[in-house]
């Protein structure tokens, strides 16, 4: 039955094709071509946008960083000044370089904290328990909510508070600020200094504890990515582990951790990008401050941010290289 159908089909195919074999040959290639052409059609929104809008913007921006600008009523004029803006940023403007160092040091501490914390929470939220849906809903609030506007309002409030402390207006009443200070630094320091640990470690831990609000707020997307990864690990692996008598601790380090290591790479890269480009970043703040000063400031800010971008790329490549050497990839067909 099967065979007869096959032969019939091939007969039907062959009959009209035999007189014009080259034509049929071309038809096969056109089908492939058509598919690849459809690929171009599908990515065309991005490609056109990139070529028409993004590329000119990038090149223009690089060009701007070598220029000084004058704006008038009839548009703007640009004067090419070479590396002056860059020289200004590195040699004349002392704040820029010190801010750069400060932000790098900050992030070297903050990134591991975010990556590890979000993994921990994702593992917890992945377990079956009562109220899981509620906890999940709460933990993802920051993803939706804490962008842009809240950061800006907090910043404004913080500035107002600084101003208040500077002018020392004494006044009663409660403080309606976000709960940033959970444990007073002194308290933690007192506990830890009883143990014999280095002072740097004490400062690091107190910073972590007081920065937990920041860390929780910044690790929403990472948590989502980890959860997606955890869901994709096949339950039968855990089952066989359990049958072999592995404890939960062993299972985590021998199964979950290697299986999720690609996600650790993704998350580290994402965290680096996110925290280097976020509004609360020291350098970003400084750049936008310079940007808003005057016309020269705009160009200087552009030059600064290009330097900053190059630095971020270098750091990304370094971190990515180090981590990807240890990432475990399960054999996949895809």
């Amino acid at each position, binding site marked *: 039955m099967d065979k007869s159908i096959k032969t019939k089909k091939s007969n039907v195919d062959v009959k009209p094709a035999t007189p014009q074999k080259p034509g049929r040959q071309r038809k096969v290639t056109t089908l492939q071509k058509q*598919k690849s052409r459809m690929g171009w059609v599908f*990515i065309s929104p991005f490609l056109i946008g*990139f070529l028409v809008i993004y590329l000119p913007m990038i090149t223009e921006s690089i060009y701007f960083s070598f220029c000084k600008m004058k704006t008038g009523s009839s548009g703007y004029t640009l004067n090419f000044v070479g590396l002056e803006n860059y020289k200004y940023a590195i040699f004349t403007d002392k704040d820029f370089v010190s801010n750069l160092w400060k932000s790098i040091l900050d992030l070297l501490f903050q990134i591991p904290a975010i990556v590890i914390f979000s993994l921990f929470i994702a593992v917890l939220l992945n377990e079956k328990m009562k109220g899981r849906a509620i906890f999940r809903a709460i933990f993802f609030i920051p993803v939706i*909510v804490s962008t842009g506007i809240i950061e800006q309002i907090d910043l404004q409030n913080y500035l107002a508070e600084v101003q208040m402390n500077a002018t020392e207006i004494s006044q009663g*009443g*409660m403080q309606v600020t*976000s*709960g940033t200070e959970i444990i007073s630094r002194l308290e933690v320091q007192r506990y830890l200094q009883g143990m014999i640990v280095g002072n740097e470690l004490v400062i690091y831990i107190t910073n972590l504890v007081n920065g937990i609000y920041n860390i929780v707020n910044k690790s929403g997307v990472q948590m989502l990515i980890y959860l997606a990864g955890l869901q994709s690990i096949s339950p039968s692996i855990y089952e066989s582990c359990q049958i072999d008598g592995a404890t939960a601790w062993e299972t985590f380090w021998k199964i979950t951790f290697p299986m999720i290591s690609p996600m650790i790479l993704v998350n580290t890269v994402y965290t680096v990008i996110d925290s280097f480009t976020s509004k609360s970043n020291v350098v970003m703040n400084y750049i936008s401050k310079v940007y808003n000063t005057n016309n020269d400031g705009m160009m200087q800010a552009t030059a600064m941010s290009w330097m*900053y971008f190059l630095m971020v790329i270098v750091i990304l490549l370094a971190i990515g290289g180090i981590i990807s050497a240890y990432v475990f990839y399960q054999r996949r067909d895809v």
Partner: protein
Amino acid sequence: MDMPVNDKKAQKALKKQLEKEEALRRIRAQEKTPFLLRLKYKYLTWYFAKRFAWALFRFVLLFGISFIIIFPYISKIAGSIMSRDDFVDTTVKLIAKYPTFDTYKAIINDNHYFKALFNSTLLSLLCGVCQMLTAAVVGYGFSKFKFKFRNAIFYLVIFTMIVPHDTIQLSMFMKFHYFDIYGIVGGIKKLLGSAEQTPAIANLLNTFWPLAILSITGLAFKNGLYIYIMRQYFNGVPDELEEAAYVDGAGVIRTFIRIILPMSVPMLVTIFMFAFSWQWSDTFYTELFFPSKSAPLLLPKIVGVPASLDTNYAAQITYETAIRNTCGLLILAPLVIIYLFAQRTLIEGVERSGITG
């Protein structure tokens, strides 16, 4: 010396054995075990104790962190319903003595809240839908078709994700202030002998156009991430599905619209939620593209002390802080309501996405 110990041990073992046998006999005879015995076997075990300790630890930890997340909002809500007198009263901590909705009323009326809400809803819907569709289409193209330079072009997507938008904000501003594509329109105008010296073609600032263009082309805030997520998701969709559709005579586009899009609704909702909410509370584009006062009023711009509230007294700074926080609450309220409805789909979508390195 050893004997009594051994004896005791043996006795204990014997007792246990007997107990076990008794239990087994009961089970075999389908007799009911006494209630207390059942409780004992269920709860007085090492296994249960360990699990209970872990569950307790987990609950305390999650509860604490949830508290950290929610507390700022609680304190903001508490501050928003306080009246002027509460801010100078030292006995008032979190719960107002003289609760009032004056702050809300003043912000809604003086800062034109509903106008901003309308505009923001329009803009966010536009951006959300455009970015969602673009991410789906482009992600599908990267995932399911083989063509030359595919990987190279995908690196361009990653590139747009990495370059911070602050870096190109000046040229972005210029681009949309003097909007032109490679100077083509300007060239034509010059050829036609228009008297204008400036290259000012079209000023797209203070309109929705810049964001619409960026959204359609997948260049807006974090769109590279969306494309990446969609590509990973489509990589996990088996090819046989489309092949079946092709065999049935559907074209590529029809397959995409009729089969692929409906099955990826959770992912689409996720992308839409991200795009919508990030546009909703975004300040960067709002400041960049809507600089003038005649521009459509958007939500991030309503933050400020309303004129009808007199803040010039002892607790000025805490009062103004509370007012600003109330503005933030009013901005976020619609978002939170949407989130409550969509969160189940959202989390489901992310779980199914199979994002991998």
